[in-house]
């Protein structure tokens, strides 16, 4: 309702000028309602996608079986094994099954290696990033002291027949202030007998599901659509004279009589909306 727009309007009857103009409802609000629905749908999609990608992310169990090899008293899962699982969420369980005492322990790779130094050791490494493992056995002492209870282990689990150690899935010895020491796992019986060969890694994967990305993408797209500002429409106030058709006074485009007629009476001025610039075609 700028003064510039009003300046090109046809002459108006001064008697009616002082009266407040009444708005014509219906045209613009219909578009806004649709936009709000689109925005609401976008938020729903985004929220659902976000939930699926975070707290409601579905879990699935993954396993890797350590290849059996040799009769060494020690079996070491070197840093590449836990490192191969890096980036996956949650904890990993190392399960070892044997016929007598079973030990599963974690320590820094350097400490595990130092303890095993000189002993015949089966070392398991990650062959590739797909989770396949390979084993090799080194020559050395066939019998070593019982490694259970060593002060080098950051965590250990012992049992008879089997043992399972669940550890946070991290490749490094990580505390509040320190990182940087890769972790390895030691599996043994009692040092005097061969290490258990049935060793399994079980971990929980929680990848972001595809549907979450689809929902997020769709939600973001709808959000952008809803956020697009439609062509701006300036309301134009036209005070219709009580007598005579508007067209007779103005050679400009015909006013949208149909919209105005909704609540217009012949004796009342009404507010009409026209697209911005529609009045620019009027002669100067």
């Amino acid at each position, binding site marked *: 309702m700028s003064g510039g727009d009003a300046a090109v309007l046809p002459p108006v009857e001064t008697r009616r000028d002082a009266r407040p103009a009444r708005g014509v409802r219906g045209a*613009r*609000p219909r578009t*806004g309602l649709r*936009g709000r629905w689109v*925005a609401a749908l*976008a*938020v729903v999609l*985004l*929220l659902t*996608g*976000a939930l699926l*990608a*975070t707290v409601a992310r579905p879990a699935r169990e993954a396993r890797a079986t350590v290849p059996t090899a040799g009769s060494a008293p020690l079996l070491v899962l070197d840093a590449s094994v836990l490192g191969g699982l*890096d*980036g*996956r*969420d949650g904890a990993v369980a190392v399960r070892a099954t044997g016929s007598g005492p079973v030990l599963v322990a974690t320590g*820094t790779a*350097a*400490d595990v290696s*130092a*303890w095993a*130094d000189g002993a015949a050791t089966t070392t398991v490494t990650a062959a590739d990033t797909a989770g396949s493992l390979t084993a090799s056995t080194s020559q050395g002492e066939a019998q*070593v*002291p019982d*490694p259970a209870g*060593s*002060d*080098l*282990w*950051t*965590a250990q689990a012992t049992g008879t027949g089997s043992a399972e150690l669940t550890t946070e899935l991290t490749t490094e*010895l*990580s*505390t*509040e*202030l*320190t*990182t*940087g*020491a890769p972790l390895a796992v030691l599996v043994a019986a009692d040092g005097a007998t061969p290490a258990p060969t049935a060793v399994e890694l079980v971990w929980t994967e*929680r*990848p*972001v599901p595809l549907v*979450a990305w689809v929902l*997020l993408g769709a*939600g*973001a797209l709808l*959000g*952008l659509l*809803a*956020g697009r*500002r*439609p062509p701006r429409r300036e309301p134009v106030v036209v005070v219709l004279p009580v007598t005579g058709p508007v067209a007779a006074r103005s050679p400009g485009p015909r006013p949208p009589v149909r919209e105005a007629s909704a609540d217009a009476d012949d004796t009342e001025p009404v507010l009409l909306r026209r697209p911005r610039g529609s009045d620019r075609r009027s002669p100067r």
Partner: protein
Amino acid sequence: MRPTGAPRWAGALTAAGLVLAVAGCSPGSPGDRAAAPGPVPAVVTAQVSHVLTAVGQVDPAALDGRFGGAELDVRRAAVAVRAQVPTAPEPAPLAGRVLMTAVPPTGEWPRWFVTALEPGGGAVPQVVVLEQAGPRDPYRAVAAAAVLPGASLPELARDGETAEPLAADAAGLLATPADALSGYADVLTRGDEAPAAASTVDDALRTQVLSEQQAERDGVSQFVEYTAAHAPREGAVWSLRTADGGALVLGVLSGTRSFTPRGVGVSQTLPPDLAALAGRSDAPDGLEVRTAEVVVLHVPAAGAAARVSLVAGARGTTGVEVR
């Protein structure tokens, strides 16, 4: 109704925030590890707890499982004495609330760390050195000293979770750790005549040892040649940088008091505790009493106005040798 832009922008921002939040939650993002890098300590908290629990619950029949060095010598002697002299004090277990732990960075063996334990029940806090000889060995308590009345442990320099160990010949101090230790041993041997006496603050342990030696010398000197000497025990010095640029030097001194008869016919009767250790109650040809003094010294930085001071100390008999 005129449409406003604010809700639309809010919606767009919300959407962007959600997408960013989800991206941030995805595994493998760089924000997963916020820990600041620092040297890797030789042991982490869980290992320290494991070690201290084992030390506190050690089987008296297998002391060498968790005690070593001077601490094992003193405890073995105490057990031997108590077996013969029921009134002799029982060695207190090394246990209690952990007041402080100082762990050097991980490295080659022997590895060690220092802790301070408050036993509770009004007992004096103990400063304990735990050492691991090799990767397959347990950490053993090799030295323990009681914090002296009125003294407090200086604050240690820290780098992340680790304390900074110093070599025995580390420079930049009023005296190197090794020199500070030998200087203090000399003070216990010669008293105020020792060159280091002037640069060392007087303390309760020094007063007790010197007065005890003087009393023994006065008591036997008419018939017995008496000597008392203290020297650093080999391989028993552990030093940590303090926050003030100085050092906390923990060490063990070996003390030897020798009683040698001046002539034939002089008979020496041993008190019950020494007799229990010697396995006999007399020493016609003399004897040597061996002790271990655990000292914890604060050595100031070079150029500082302060002097070397003892913050914790302990003394125990480790053996008696009858000639």
